[in-house]
């Protein structure tokens, strides 16, 4: 009798009934693999891991409920319809009936994904939680070249570009950006929206190359879903700002490839509504400039906003309320570059900085047309330059490399610019995503930044009696904690050292005593001496023994878990060790 024998007439039970393999699923859905893949991607259905794999280990298993979920999807029917329609077109073409084929092509059935998005993400927060991949993908495709071979149309690339800019404009406008990290792979951004931390990666603005080992149809299916998702999310976000979506952009700026700037202006303009005094924002520093700006905005308003907006006054109020509601972090972020004016040189990555600087309250301009102010503006405080040497230098401003901005943003303070001068190799750029304490290794520059932060806080902090702010500031607390921990560690180390010295002294005394008793037990002494020669080794051995002893009595499951944990810890400590050794070697090499 086979192992899984089931008498006739008895239904399947357990895992055999609950899961089916992929080929079974295909059969029951009557679709081919590529269509199944599309459905899975769009519906967000993924394989599951049954406790017991009835059909064998090398199969992919789907839950029966998942498959029936796909079965009842109207989109499945729609896809079938599209397929028959395409057959019609083919037939017309084959019969040389060009007219009919053309006519048919103009009326192709289409489908929409909005219902699916609602289904997959019942609440807005859900959608935000899964936004990482979406943003990364859309940002990647925004810089890809359109390609016929890969079926990537120009339209889609442009759409991706537009969506990514809209997203960035919102983040920048609401000052929700928290961390930026320039890596080799691209620039990582982390924003915080409704309590969700959203991290995405934008590639460096250089033409990407297509590789052959990638199946574009998969990517494009994902992209299709992501585009729709991001559009809806953007709509919701813009709606929350009381801005019309999709935004209508200043065509002049758009043509100059300053979409982001155009967008942010648009948002500013529309969300302000009919505010007469736009200088309540960060741009209060320079009056003349401001007036120009406001005029521009008003001009935009006239043709962009619906002429009679009853809610305008309302949302000014709402806006004000929001300002109050803003959390501490946003306030810090908003005022980081508050009174600073930046000017970007030609070679600087403009897109990124145009996004980051306004997000932290700075004012930016760039070299080229459509820029809000020119290079010779006297009020410019920082000139971002990425060349080995600057040509004409204004004395009134500081010339820094772009990394300075990213480091400032991550540290939340204005760092001294000496190290970031033109032509010098800037200090290492550290990842803001790493918890140095948990990792066990703190790079030098992180220490420096920490010290600077402490100094800045002392400058800024009000009298201790006020108290509220420093209590709320988590970084402050953290820092204090760190300090106390470090001190503790130091003290403990000193203590240990003292104890060791003491112990050594006692041992020496003991040895002398034993020396007198040599004659009594020569063999013992011999052994003892042998051990004495490597006292440390023996000590560590016994210590290890005592720590290992209890593991003998653990159950196998627990022991495995324990060993795995130990292994992880060891790996971590080894990595730290390697870093420290490398550092030591580097220091030695320098001296």
């Amino acid at each position: 009798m086979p192992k899984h024998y089931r008498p006739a007439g008895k239904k399947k039970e357990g895992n055999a009934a609950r899961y089916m393999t992929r080929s079974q699923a295909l059969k029951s859905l009557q679709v081919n693999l590529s269509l199944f893949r599309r459905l899975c991607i769009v519906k967000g259905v993924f394989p599951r891991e049954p406790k017991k794999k009835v059909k064998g280990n090398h199969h992919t298993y789907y839950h029966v409920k998942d498959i029936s979920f796909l079965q009842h999807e109207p989109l499945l029917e729609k896809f079938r319809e599209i397929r028959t329609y395409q057959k019609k077109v083919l037939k017309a073409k084959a019969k040389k009936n060009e007219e009919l084929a053309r006519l048919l092509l103009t009326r192709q059935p289409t489908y929409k994904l909005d219902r699916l998005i609602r289904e997959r993400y019942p609440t807005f927060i859900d959608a935000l939680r899964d936004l990482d991949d979406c943003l990364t993908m859309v940002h990647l495709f925004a810089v890809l070249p359109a390609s016929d071979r890969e079926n990537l149309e120009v339209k889609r690339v442009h759409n991706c570009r537009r969506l990514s800019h809209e997203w960035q404009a919102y983040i920048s406008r609401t000052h929700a950006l928290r961390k930026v990290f320039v890596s080799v792979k691209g620039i990582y951004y982390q924003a915080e929206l409704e309590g969700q931390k959203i991290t995405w990666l934008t590639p460096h603005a250089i033409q990407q190359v297509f590789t052959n080992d990638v199946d574009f149809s998969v990517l494009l299916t994902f992209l299709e879903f992501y585009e729709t998702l991001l559009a809806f999310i953007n709509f919701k976000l813009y709606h929350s700002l009381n801005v019309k979506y999709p935004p209508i952009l200043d065509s002049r700026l758009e043509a100059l490839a300053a979409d982001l700037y155009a967008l942010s202006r648009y948002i500013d303009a529309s969300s302000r509504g009919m505010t007469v005094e736009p200088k309540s924002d960060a741009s209060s520093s320079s009056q003349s400039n401001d007036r120009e700006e406001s005029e521009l905005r008003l001009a935009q308003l006239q043709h962009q906003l619906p002429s009679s907006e009853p809610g305008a006054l309302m949302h000014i109020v709402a806006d004000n309320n929001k300002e109050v509601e803003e959390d501490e972090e946003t306030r810090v972020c908003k005022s980081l570059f508050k009174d600073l004016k930046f000017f970007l040189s030609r070679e600087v990555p403009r897109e990124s900085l145009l996004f980051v600087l306004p997000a932290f309250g700075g004012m930016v301009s760039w070299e080229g047309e459509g820029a809000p102010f020119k290079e010779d503006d006297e009020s410019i405080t920082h000139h971002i330059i990425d060349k080995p040497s600057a040509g004409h230098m204004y004395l009134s401003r500081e010339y820094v490399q772009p990394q300075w901005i990213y480091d400032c943003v991550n540290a939340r303070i204005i760092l001294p610019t000496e190290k970031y001068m033109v032509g010098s190799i800037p200090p290492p750029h550290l990842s803001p995503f790493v918890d140095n304490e948990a990792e066990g290794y703190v790079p030098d520059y992180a220490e420096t930044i920490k010290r600077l932060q402490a100094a800045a806080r002392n400058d800024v902090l009000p009298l201790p009696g006020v108290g509220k702010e420093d209590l709320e500031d988590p970084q402050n607390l953290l820092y204090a904690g760190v300090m106390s921990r470090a001190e503790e560690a130091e003290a403990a180390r000193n203590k240990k050292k003292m104890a060791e010295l003491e112990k050594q002294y006692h041992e020496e005394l003991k040895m002398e005593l034993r020396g007198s008793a040599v004659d009594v037990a020569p063999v013992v002494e011999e052994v003892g001496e042998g051990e004495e020669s490597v006292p440390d080794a023996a000590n560590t051995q016994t210590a290890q023994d005592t720590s290992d002893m209890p593991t003998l009595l653990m159950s196998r499951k627990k022991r495995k878990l324990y060993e795995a944990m130990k292994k992880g810890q060891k790996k971590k400590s080894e990595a730290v060790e390697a870093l420290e050794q490398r550092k030591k070697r580097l220091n030695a090499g320098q001296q």
Partner: protein
Amino acid sequence: MKKRETANKDQMRETKSKSKNVSVSVKSQKQKAVVKEVKPVEKEVKSLKEEDLLLDSGTDSDYDGDSLSGSLNSDDFDSDIFDSEDDGSQRETEDGDRESSKDEVHGIEGSDDNDDEGEQVDSENGEEDGSGDEGSEQDEVAEESDSSEDEVAPRNTVGDVPLEWYKDEKHIGYDITGKKITKKEKQDKLDSFLATMDDSKNWRKIYDEYNDEEVELTKEESKLIRRMLKGEAPHADFDPYTPYVDWFKWDDAIHPLSSAPEPKRRFIPSKWEAKKVVKYVRAIRKGLIKFDKPEEEPNVYLLWGDDSTSDQKSKHLTYIPPPKLKLPGHEESYNPSLEYIPTEEEKASYELMYEEDRPNFIPTSLSVMVNVFVHRFASLRSIPAYPNALKESFNRCLDLYLCPRVRKKRINIDPESLKPKLPSRKDLRPYPNSCYLEYKGHTGAVTSISTECSGQWIASGSTDGSVRLWEVETGRCLKIWQFDEAVKCVAWNPLSDFPILAVAMGRDLVILNTELGTDEEQKNIKDLLQLGDLPEPKAAVAAIVSWLPDELYGGIKIRHFKNISNIDWHRKGDYLSTVMASGETRGVVIHQISKKVTTKPYKIRGLPVSAVFHPSRSYLFIATKKNVRVYNLLTVDEPVKKLETGMREISSMAIHPGGDNLIVGSKEGKMCWFDMDLSSKPYKTLKNHPKDITNVAYHRSYPLFASSSEDSTAYVFHGKVFNDLNENPLIVPLEILRGHSSSNGGGVLDCKFHPRQPWLFTAGADSIIKLYCH
């Protein structure tokens, strides 16, 4: 009404058709000319020139229309429109349906002629209306002029072949005499460019590829071209909108072309047309046909309007959100801290690793390498595009839709908290923890040791064939017995008044008199070891064992049929069990020394490893490779109990002096504690040694047990058995005893406890016996 309309519409066309009709008659005359007219269009320049020439030749050139118009003119000139219309209607009467098709056909037919003929008819109209019969004459003249012009113009007679065929040749074609026309020297590009820049007339120069020469256009020619570019007629004086003149004189026609009466259908509205109209009207009313495009619904709208309503629980399976990607660390920075960049050697070592183990992101230093991606950049602008961006994105996509997702609980606890709380070792003292004495003297690995029951002496057997007797306290070697074979096992008689020693080597078991003890005891021993007349053994036993006197040291030698692996004394000191590992079913025998009798009590299943007597009752424990069986010595032949160790290969066994607990050591380094009251499965399994366990031992009185292993360590445990049956035995590991060194792959080969003191003897493969004291 209808008639009139059609007439108006078709006015032009009809004239043309007529002219065509007429032209057919003329065609024979002017065929040549028509052929000439249809020149290849590609040779624009040439044809242009020719046309020009034609123009130059003036009014007497070959206008085909001339002849045509002439012929027309010769007929009736002043006809009426209505008449012509009449004509048309007559045709219509013939066959309404065919009419249209005919018209079309006509149109198509006419197209080749129309282009030239009709046009020229028109042009003729403007210039020379009523030029009369001269036309035909002119035609002839034109033909002549045509031929003369042919002689003059094209130098090249290569014919209508693609000029590419001559691309690589030195000549461009042949002149009329058949000689090759050589190509002109190609000018240097720069020179030609300069020349063109200098020449103010350059813009009107055209290169004639066919004749390989530059042609300078005259003013007129350039004007001509300009007009053609604009899409106008080449000649300025050509008027395309001349008023229509009906040349046909309809008045004179007496007979209609067709005499058939007008059909009825000409006078009633068409039924089918009406039906079609009704059909469309209905379709429009029903909304099947829409004239204005449907309003496009907005693609995006407020999807999550009010989140409070969407709290309903999904009926579907729980959604497992995809895990977020790992956030980048310091090493992924474009400008990492220098210590994050591995050295060359480290990188080389990464290369040697398995792909799974290799760190997936390796930062490299500023120094430029050929194919390794450089990861430290002096400035932002020098970062290149990341080549794996698409690939990584693709992999992520694959993960998202192809990988099974499982919710896993990540335990974030201190690993130390997993360890069981054990009583402090200090409270469990005394136990052996440090080496106190070493007994040196053997030259081979010490395979076995045994303690005398008083604890004053130990005996040891070694692979060098010697058995030594040591005094425990001093480490003095009292006696040495030398044998030919390596000693496998030694065992003291448990009775204190019979200090005799059983030594197993090869196939022999020798009972030795140690010559310790008082004279009376000695006498007893001598009596015991006297092999008098042996009782007749059973046949089955005789095949296995034979009792012989030992000539060497005056004891008893019991020869077995297979090599002995283990021996054990019964507590009463009279019985001795022997295990022969390769003896299979006959692997265990029991000797009775007093009666010099051997019995083969049981049929063993499997390979016997060890046989041990119960310390207080008449049971025998026999360990085979995987299981331990308990036999009652007095009654039955079948085992009373079977203990399943679950280990691969048992190597040793020891019984707690209480008799209800048992430890079993295995060759995979595991040790099992059986509580026989509890179950036939191990109460606790300890994996303490990485290598084979060679022996396990209980202390007689202290709650201690030990294991020795080939990894040159011995473990000492606290193993307390409670009298209360509800309480499980307490096992606490106490000490790892190191000190022996490994030799020939063997570590500690045997361990025994001192019978009185909490001391442990260990016999090492390094030929040393050690005593560990508390």
